[in-house]
């Protein structure tokens, strides 16, 4: 069993900004702790400090039980790393070192087969055995069978890039969960996993006896798995000792308590200053008062030296105002629509005010259907039309906008687009401020984080005056707080919403569920359906 103890950690960014200050928390043996916070709050930096990749400017990290780390980029590996190299890199340092020793000795034997080289090879093999290398090889075999369905020998030279994002994640997770390390740091382990994959992950994390600290934006995963929540905000961190269901209330209560303490400190501060001023006047006439004046001065100095309690962290300033507007009763009418080669023909009627979640397996044509409704060129048969005064607004996954990448946010707002009038700099900055993007106004779109790009796209929807929102995975890159803000905005939106999503928490806020089945059938379900199998296509 292992634990992680972070004490007084301080970290300063290269630009001099203090990202983390006096961060202290402990993840005890067998705990499964979630690390949450806004995009850019320092979650990944904190994980890198714990794993030893970064050295903090102050404070210390203590841990026992061996550390296994799954980094965020796993799932998007596109270089020539092989499966074998990947597994070695996930192994404990001693195993990695012994493996490198054996490899070096093997290479040396190819060059020279003399006695010292042979004995060095024998020593390297002996070391491999001593660090438990043979057991590790057995584990690798189990891991590749579990994650990819083939033994290690059958896939070790395969390039990782040939695996899907979900397969890469699963391979790493199997390796860490079955490996010897007792403390696991998982940075967004659920990214790239479909819903059945996420359910598998939840089950494995619930079952494991290891100590886990993980970052995730998936509220369903957080609710099912986390037994405590570590929050990084306002440069510090605090721990909620309960589960995620009780977390929002605990966070609000904490913020209120902090605001209250700060208010009381300010009031006492004011009172002491007033007293000092009064005594200063009185001291001019009375030596007795002069002594009291000096004593009061000292008291004020001590009070100020002790400093105020930390103020409540500033709320993330995201105020999404999706106004919409009244449209005809029938918003979407589709008759025998079929996207060529993707699904069987289906009928659909969507009325004003409906909230329709589009669910189903990857590759079933959900995003194509949304793009068709957004007016893009998508091959199809059958008829479809939008109702009176229906203005579609389309939110696409970020990679769908290559033309935005090298433009600044203010520039994109200023120029406008067909269907979205441009706005002057003043209005643009005001709108950006409401979405927590004021500081990014003059940055290029490509330099924004995934969450910031998503928020910006919602802002564009707001400005376009859309009355039908077509959203393709809108919560994918949003942190928990931004996702909740989007949900509130959608709830207040006067219009119709249709969204493709794999986010189970988000999907529950909808009232109709259109499912694209893996067999090509499109049907409506009374409840969200998440276990449609992946569509198999020849590649």
């Amino acid at each position, binding site marked *: 069993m292992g634990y992680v103890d972070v004490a007084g950690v301080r970290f300063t960014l290269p630009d001099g900004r203090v990202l983390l200050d006096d961060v202290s928390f402990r993840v005890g043996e067998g705990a499964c702790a979630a690390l949450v916070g806004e995009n850019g709050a320092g979650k990944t930096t904190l994980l890198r400090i714990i794993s030893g990749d970064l050295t903090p400017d102050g404070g210390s990290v203590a841990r026992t039980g061996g550390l296994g780390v799954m980094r965020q980029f796993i799932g998007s590996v596109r270089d020539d790393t092989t499966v074998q190299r990947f597994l070695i890199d996930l192994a404990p340092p001693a195993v990695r070192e012994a493996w490198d020793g054996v490899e070096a000795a093997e290479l040396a034997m190819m060059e020279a*087969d003399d006695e010292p080289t*042979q*004995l060095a090879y*024998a020593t390297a*093999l*002996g070391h491999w055995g001593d660090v438990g290398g043979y057991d590790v090889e057995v584990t690798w075999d189990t891991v590749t069978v579990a994650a990819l369905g083939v033994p290690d020998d059958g896939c070790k030279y395969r390039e990782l890039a040939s695996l899907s994002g979900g397969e890469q994640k699963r391979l790493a997770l199997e390796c860490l969960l079955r490996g010897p390390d007792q403390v696991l740091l998982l940075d967004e382990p659920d990214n790239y996993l479909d819903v059945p994959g996420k359910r598998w992950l939840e089950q494995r994390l619930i079952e494991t006896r290891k100590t886990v600290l993980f970052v995730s934006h998936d509220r369903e995963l957080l609710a099912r798995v986390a037994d405590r929540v570590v929050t990084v905000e306002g440069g510090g961190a605090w721990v909620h000792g309960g589960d995620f269901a009780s977390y929002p209330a605990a966070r609000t209560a904490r913020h209120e308590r902090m605001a209250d303490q700060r208010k009381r400190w300010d009031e006492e501060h004011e009172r002491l200053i007033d007293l000092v001023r009064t005594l200063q006047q009185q001291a001019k006439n009375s030596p007795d008062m002069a002594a009291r004046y000096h004593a009061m001065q000292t008291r004020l100095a001590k009070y100020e030296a002790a400093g105020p309690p930390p103020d409540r962290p500033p709320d993330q300033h995201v105020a999404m105002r999706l106004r919409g507007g009244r449209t005809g009763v029938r918003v979407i009418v589709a008759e025998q629509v079929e996207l060529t080669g993707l699904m069987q023909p289906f009928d659909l009627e969507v009325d004003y005010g409906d909230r329709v979640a589009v669910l189903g397996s990857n590759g079933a044509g959900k995003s194509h259907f949304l793009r068709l409704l957004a007016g893009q060129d998508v091959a199809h048969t059958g008829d479809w039309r939008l109702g009176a005064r229906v203005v579609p607004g389309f939110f696409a996954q970020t990679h769908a906008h290559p033309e935005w990448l090298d433009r600044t946010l203010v520039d994109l707002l200023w120029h406008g687009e067909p269907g979205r009038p441009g706005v002057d700099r003043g209005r643009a900055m005001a709108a950006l401020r409401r979405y927590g993007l004021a500081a990014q106004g003059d940055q290029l779109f490509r330099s924004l984080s995934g969450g910031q790009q998503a928020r910006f796209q919602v802002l564009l929807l707001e400005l376009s005056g859309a009355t039908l929102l077509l959203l393709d995975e809108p919560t994918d890159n949003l942190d928990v707080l931004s996702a909740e803000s989007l949900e509130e905005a959608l709830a207040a939106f006067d219009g119709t919403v249709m969204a493709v999503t794999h986010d189970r928490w988000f999907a529950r806020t909808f009232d109709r569920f259109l499912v694209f089945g893996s067999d090509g059938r499109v049907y409506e379900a009374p409840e969200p359906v998440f276990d449609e199998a992946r569509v198999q296509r020849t590649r």
Partner: protein
Amino acid sequence: MTLALHSRPVRDASVEQAVRRLVAEFSGSAGDRDVVRVVRTCRQELSGAPVDALPELVERLARYRLRLSID
């Protein structure tokens, strides 16, 4: 890298096999006793190596030493 995976109690199969093959290989140039002695020495010196890798390591080292002695 191909490695045998399971540890087993030490059997001197490594010595027996190496002796059998090397005696045949060096017949005429080294005596049987010399081969046995070299193989046993190698086995002893390699005692820290994993059991399953021993046959290959022992035979390889013994062959190298026998060749040197003939040269």
